[in-house]
């Protein structure tokens, strides 16, 4: 496999997502230098964010995030490569990293199923895949919890939410989801995965649907955590 990778690297060399430094066959996505720059939010920050984003609605039982989005350029580049350069492998990588970093916390939740926050069919057709699904897959591979796509469906097409504030987002996302496979979640503990959590509105709405459908507990997990004041999102130009 390594040999195969080396041959592929000759024809299609891989470079670090952030600093464009060539990678060797053992490295993935980020070069060692950039990997060392990644840091995770402390338990205090997570607790505070949980209280601020999810406690009011009380659908979500606990929250965890592996990385901080804004301050970490490396993670931002990884997420952008996933969403805008359509490199779904970045999702799996993020999931595995998250599973590794948050291992204790997630295992403590004793969840039965990992569900990615779904994309609207149109959005999915445009991007080609649901990025959260690949993060879920990564975590699932790392920790051995099952994941299943298509349990919830997004029925309302919402434009990008980046320019909306917390309240507007909440109103915007209302009734956007529908539960498709109720049997699978009844009396189960569920982990909801999103790539980036900003205000938590989307996850809250999903959690509401799940709880109303009979889920026992719902946990929220995001690869990266972003503050609600965060405004980025001009799509980076990528070569086609």
């Amino acid at each position, binding site marked *: 496999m390594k040999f195969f990778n080396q041959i*592929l690297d000759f024809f299609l*060399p*891989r470079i670090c997502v952030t600093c464009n430094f060539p990678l060797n066959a053992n490295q993935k996505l980020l070069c060692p230098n950039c990997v060392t720059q990644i840091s995770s939010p402390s338990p205090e920050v997570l607790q505070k964010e949980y209280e601020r984003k999810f406690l009011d609605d009380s659908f979500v039982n606990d929250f965890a995030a592996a990385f901080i989005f804004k301050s970490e350029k490396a993670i931002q580049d990884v997420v952008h490569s996933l969403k805008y350069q359509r*490199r779904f*492998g970045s999702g799996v990588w993020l999931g595995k990293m998250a599973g590794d970093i948050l291992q204790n916390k997630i295992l403590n939740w004793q969840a039965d199923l990992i569900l990615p926050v779904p994309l609207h069919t149109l959005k999915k057709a445009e991007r080609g895949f649901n990025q959260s699904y690949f993060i879920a897959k990564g975590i699932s591979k790392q920790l051995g919890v099952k994941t299943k796509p298509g349990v919830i469906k997004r029925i309302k097409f919402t434009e990008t939410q980046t320019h909306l504030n917390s309240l507007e987002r909440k109103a915007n996302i209302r009734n956007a989801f529908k539960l498709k496979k109720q049997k699978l979640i009844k009396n189960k503990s569920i982990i909801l995965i999103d790539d980036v959590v900003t205000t938590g509105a989307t996850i809250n709405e999903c959690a509401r649907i799940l709880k109303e459908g009979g889920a026992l507990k719902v946990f929220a997990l995001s690869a990266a955590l972003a503050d609600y004041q965060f405004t980025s999102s001009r799509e980076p130009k990528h070569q086609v």
Partner: protein
Amino acid sequence: MNRFPVVNSIIIFCFGILAESYFKFITDKTIFVIGTLLIVSTIIFLIKKFPFKIKILNPLIYTIIFLMGALHFGLDKNDTVSYPFNTARLKNAAVFGKVKSVELPQKNKLKFLLSVDSIHTQKGKIKRKFNLLCNLKELSNRKQNAILQKIRIGNSIKISGSIYKPRNRRNPGEFNYEEYLNRNDIAALLSFGRKDSLSLIEEEPNLYNIVADARFEINRIFKELNNEKASGFLKGILLADRGEIDFSTREKFVNAGVVHILAVSGLHVGFIVLIFIVISSRFNLYIRSAITIIGLLAFLIITNSPASVVRASIMGVTLIITFLLNRKFNSYNALAIAALIILIIDPMELFNPGFQLSFSAVLSIVAIYPIFSRGIYKFGIKNQWINKLLLFFSVSLAAQIGTLPFTILYFNKLSIIALFANLIVIPLVAIIVSTGIVTLIFYPISKWIAGVYAYANDVLVSWLHYFVNFAGGTSISHINIFQFSILDALIFYTLIILGFYLYRSLLSPKAKVLFIILLSLNFALLIQLDNSKLLPDNKLSIMAIDIGQGDATLIKFQNNQTALVDAGNATKSFDNGEMVIYPLLQRLEIDSIDYGFITHVDADHYRGFFSLFKKGIIKKLYKPVLDRSLNKDLRLDSLIRAEKIPLKYYHNDIISFGNVRLYVLNDSTSLKTMNLSTNDKSGIFKIEYGETSFLLTGDAGFKIEKYLVNKFNKFLNSDVLKVGHHGSKHSTSKGFLDAVNPKMSFISAGVINRFNHPTPEVISLLESRDIEIHRTDLSGAIIYQSDGEQIEFINWRE
């Protein structure tokens, strides 16, 4: 670039090919050199603690790649084909062989490639293996269908016809058809007349028939649903068969700078990818990628894989695979992979115009477009549409810059309106291509719906033609550039690269403008360094143009005035005026002919003039006195008057061109000459420049020769004689030759003409007097130059 080993490798590989093509240094021993180098580098690679491992290994590996490129080309070059017989034509031959490939049928025409096994002629059986391109013309529909059934790929057949050598470069700057065919492994041509027959010997199933059938079927559907123009065009852009797009249409596309549309280019592959991605958008990632790759491969096979499609398809597949493997796509790298695959399959592709145009276009788009787009964003134009328009322009401009040297080299034209024309043509062609594909998809479902789309396409294609005719039909659409060499192309690229590097380092806008002006001035000067005129100013040049059987002699006088004595024949299938003389004049940068001379009214002397009249380049015309008993003469006369060209009949004339004098030796009042045949009424010209002189006698026979000798005697004495009547046995008498007493002579005759010109008698007569002979049928165009003291024979092939 260090990050992409394939990019480095392919550049070095190309240099290897180029080096071998120029210096031919590859021998049998090169392979041992490569072997040794390989072993050495493997050993160094395997020793873990070798000092300066990378520093030594890198140059070693690059040397190996360089040598491999050279070796690959050297080995490939060894088996080049050439015409396998001594005689230029083998009449009534029966050829046995296997059908290799069949071109799409055209109206009453068929073309297929035969892998010959043996040939039977009257003299006996010849066993020779080569590829023969069979041209079947003037077929009835029924016969065409019957033959199509027999010539399926793989079948063994017997075909009768005459085998002939393809036309090579006959005149300076002309396209070398023979070389082109030889490069494509075709050694000879076969013409199939009405009396010839084709019979099937043995059928053999062959997988290629599936592709051929698919192509035939698509062609048939377009023929059935679309009108002639649209089906010819669709055939060109979807099946890469330009057989039904005629010469003048193509020229207009060249003038408008949109000829890349006619070749199935990467652009079409882009459309195909887009169409498949849209069709399969509902499926998951892997299925979607697989469908798109399969679609690309199908398109590649259907188009018979020209270089541009192969390139674009490989790039497309690379894009999909990098996506699936979660690697970052890099255009340079994908381009390099495409080049590597194409050149490993066939290193000769490096010299294929299609390959060169395709790669230079993409390379410069990839390299230059980002610079332009950054510049456009810097302007900060608010209007989205204007921005998009500018970006579109810059893609076009980038492609134009990159392909410029190649387009000038191959088309001798620089289109001025290309940027604007592309703006309209590219979207239009995108719609035509997709409508064409939709037509094909709907055909099996509902002919009616397919027909509606086809009708829409007819309209779109006619719009396209209308626009291109309008844009490319004007003379201001393009500049003709004939003096452009490979050296100029190298200068161009060097300056462009240098320009971009320096441009970035200059900060003040004034400096940038100044820099660009200086750079373009430099370019204008540099490309003129190696320019030289074939027919120089300040000299008298006489050139026998090779127009096959017939006469056409171009004279450029010392004062830059020009004359054309005869213009060869023009038939329905081949017009010498349009196809040979006019392009030649353009290449020689001669805009108009000051004096046209029709020696006499015979098809092989005057018909070529018609298209030149139409182009308005003949300023004044001389011809023999009107013979009212001759219908063709009456018609010719009225045509000349209709074109309003000043006309004079031959009669004892002296025309001065600076220091050169042209004497017309005909006497239209002399009954002795006027009662003779048309041939004998030929214009007789003596051209004198200083101490040198030339004599041209048209098709004049013995009687008029005798008359001339009696009348002018010593005055006929000339250095160069254009041997009368293509060297026929009815001309060039001993007495006449005594009077003229030339040192050199030239004969204008077609290769293996049916009159057997020139006759051995005349040749031996000339040889017996030690007169140098040059023949157009043997060596193509003939050029003499005189500076007033000496006459020099010019070998233009050097």
